[in-house]
């Protein structure tokens, strides 16, 4: 029982982190129809900026300033890059963001080198908040949960309860009408892109100390973020939240389990062959669930697409 509880908490931490990344991505996509390949790169930039700031001014100022910087960089990319490319259609946009992802990785390696940065959680949060059985729960993880929940509630409030949110929602579905009503739609786009990338930056700031700050961190999370928004339904904030938690829980429990496929085969009444190299199922006999854990989200994505092509909460085709 302890074990399940602990893993639920771990899954929540990872899931909410994914949510912060996918929330921005799904908003950007639903608004501009752009799949931003460089999204995870902004996450990486957030971690590196925060690391650099934390050296001089401490963790907390990094937490404030780094997402702002990343957001400004993101808005700049939209204003001076994407907007120009936009008129040529979606393919050039895709190529542009893809190139941007490569560029950001090279830039990061140029300034900070290739080895892992010593970006760590602040002293204040460096203690065990409570233990469940022998399992220590670090205070920093609880802090991560609260930050992500706060972000979710704020976003939900802005999008559904404020005038800005209504303009954004209207611009999502009827950009021309909104423009005709006198709203500056390109400005709204730039704002959404800026906020989306700032969220990715914030995710980087708080994930950097836990998951490591190194040039590979963007690639490591990049593909899983796309899986999340496809499962959740493109453009849906609730979908992003549910899918993130689902993936967080799935990968955590898969890695924590000690399920062997051999047990399943034995239960099916098969006998373990003496010489595995001869057997058709040689791989299955030696495989365990943690070994295939990282591919499970992709399996889930395929299943969701087969059963519900819109994703769990989506309104349009993926």
């Amino acid at each position: 029982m302890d074990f399940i509880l602990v893993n639920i908490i771990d899954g929540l931490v990872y899931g909410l982190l994914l949510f912060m990344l996918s929330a921005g991505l799904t908003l950007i996509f639903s608004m501009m129809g752009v799949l931003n390949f460089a999204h995870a790169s902004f996450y990486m930039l957030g971690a590196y900026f925060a690391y650099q700031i934390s050296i001089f001014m401490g963790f907390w100022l990094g937490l404030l300033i780094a997402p702002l910087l990343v957001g400004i960089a993101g808005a700049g990319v939209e204003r001076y890059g994407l907007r120009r490319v936009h008129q040529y259609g979606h393919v050039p946009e895709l190529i542009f963001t893809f190139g941007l992802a490569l560029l950001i990785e090279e830039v990061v390696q140029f300034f900070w080198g290739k080895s892992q940065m010593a970006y760590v959680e602040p002293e204040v949060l460096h203690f065990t908040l409570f233990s469940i059985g022998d399992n220590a729960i670090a205070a920093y993880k609880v802090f991560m949960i609260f930050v992500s929940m706060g972000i979710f509630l704020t976003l939900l409030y802005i999008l559904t309860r404020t005038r800005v949110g209504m303009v954004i929602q209207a611009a999502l579905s009827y950009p021309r009408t909104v423009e005709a009503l006198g709203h500056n739609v390109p400005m709204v786009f730039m704002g959404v892109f800026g906020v989306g990338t700032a969220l990715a930056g914030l995710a980087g700031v708080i994930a950097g100390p836990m998951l490591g700050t190194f040039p590979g961190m963007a690639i490591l999370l990049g593909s899983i973020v796309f899986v999340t928004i496809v499962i959740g339904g493109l453009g849906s904030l609730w979908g992003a939240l549910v899918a993130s938690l689902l993936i967080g829980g799935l990968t955590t429990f898969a890695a924590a389990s000690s399920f062997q496929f051999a047990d399943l085969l034995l239960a099916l009444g098969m006998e373990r062959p003496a010489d595995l190299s001869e057997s058709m199922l040689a791989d299955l006999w030696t495989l365990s669930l943690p070994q295939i854990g990282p591919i499970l989200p992709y399996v889930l994505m395929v299943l969701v697409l087969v059963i519900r092509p819109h994703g769990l909460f989506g309104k349009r085709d993926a």
Partner: protein
Amino acid sequence: MRKKTFLGLTTALAMTVGATAAMAENIKIAFLEPLSGAFATTATMGLAQYQFAADTLVNGKGGVLGGDNFEVLGFDNKMSGKETLVQLQVAIDQGIRFVVQGNSSGIAHAITDAVKKHNKRNPDDLVLFLNYSAVDPALTNDKCHFYHFRFDAHAGIKMDALTDVMAENQDIKSVYLIGQDYSFGKAVAAAAVNDLGAKRPDIEIVGNELHPIGKVKDFTPYARKIVASGADAVITGNWGSDMVGLGKAIVEAGFKGPIYTYYAAGGGITRTIGAAGVGSIYVVQEGNYNPPASQRISDYITAFKAKYPDYDITQARITNTLEMLARAINTAGSATDINAIAYALEGMEHENLWGGKVMMRPDDHQLIQNVQIAMHTDEGIEFKLDNSPYGLLIQNNVEMAGMDFPHTCKMKRP
């Protein structure tokens, strides 16, 4: 106009000849490593250590054969087997007869095969492969040959030394094995199961797990399982960000016992693990230098740090590689008679800069040396790593580790 061109050509030719004549004094050594790409940090640091060792230990002491200098040249193999073979050929075509390499056993296999073939086809133009880091046991077992020498203790020997130390620790009753899901990770786990079974059958292996290499984002669930298993110790062959992620997660999950590793030091890892790993992360390797066994070690490291403030001595074996090559060339009396040099290296006993003696076992060309278990800490560390307050402190020293470690090499000599 024509006359001018001719004059220019002659000058250029004369200068080339002059340059060649001047360079002929140098004995060139090809350093075949990934000098670009994801692993460039390790390789660049290695090249710096080679060039420093060549300058300090060989050239600074009068060179070899009464005045010839060592010159270590970097060749970028981009961590690809194909590029490695191209660069090896480039080096051979430039007249280089000594190749050093160590990052990745896969690349080492490619080089050792290529060198073997080359030497078979060109018996008058031989090449020597000095492997200073690739620790796949096969290189000095089934794949061994006369022109390959390994200066690092291989994975099996390191595990042998580690389990010797663990066997004496009666507090350890159970062990959890975790590693990356590929040949090296599997080899480490297999060696651990085998050695512990032989030395301490009472130690229970409560977990033997492989995780996808470079794919795990969050190591917490693995760490929870390790804590839940009630293991007294953990053994892992992880390296790079997989090592940092795993190490931090295990400590943060509340695990109190020792975590025995192969590669949890240097290249940013020591600084990143920082305070979290003090007293729990152990590294099994050769040539540890805290506390330094002699004034000579202190002087050497101080001089190195003065020249390369951002780098550390992470591969102590590099000094043995160059010093022993220099001695072998002097014994052979020639830098071109590769057979004589290889015979001189076989069975050579050498005073290790880092303390103790080393011996090149003639039967399989595996260097036998002291292997230490060192602890990640900030207390009593004279020479720190990554410009952090932390470093490795020697806990146990296994003298001449693997002296009678069995091998399957059938060496054919010319």
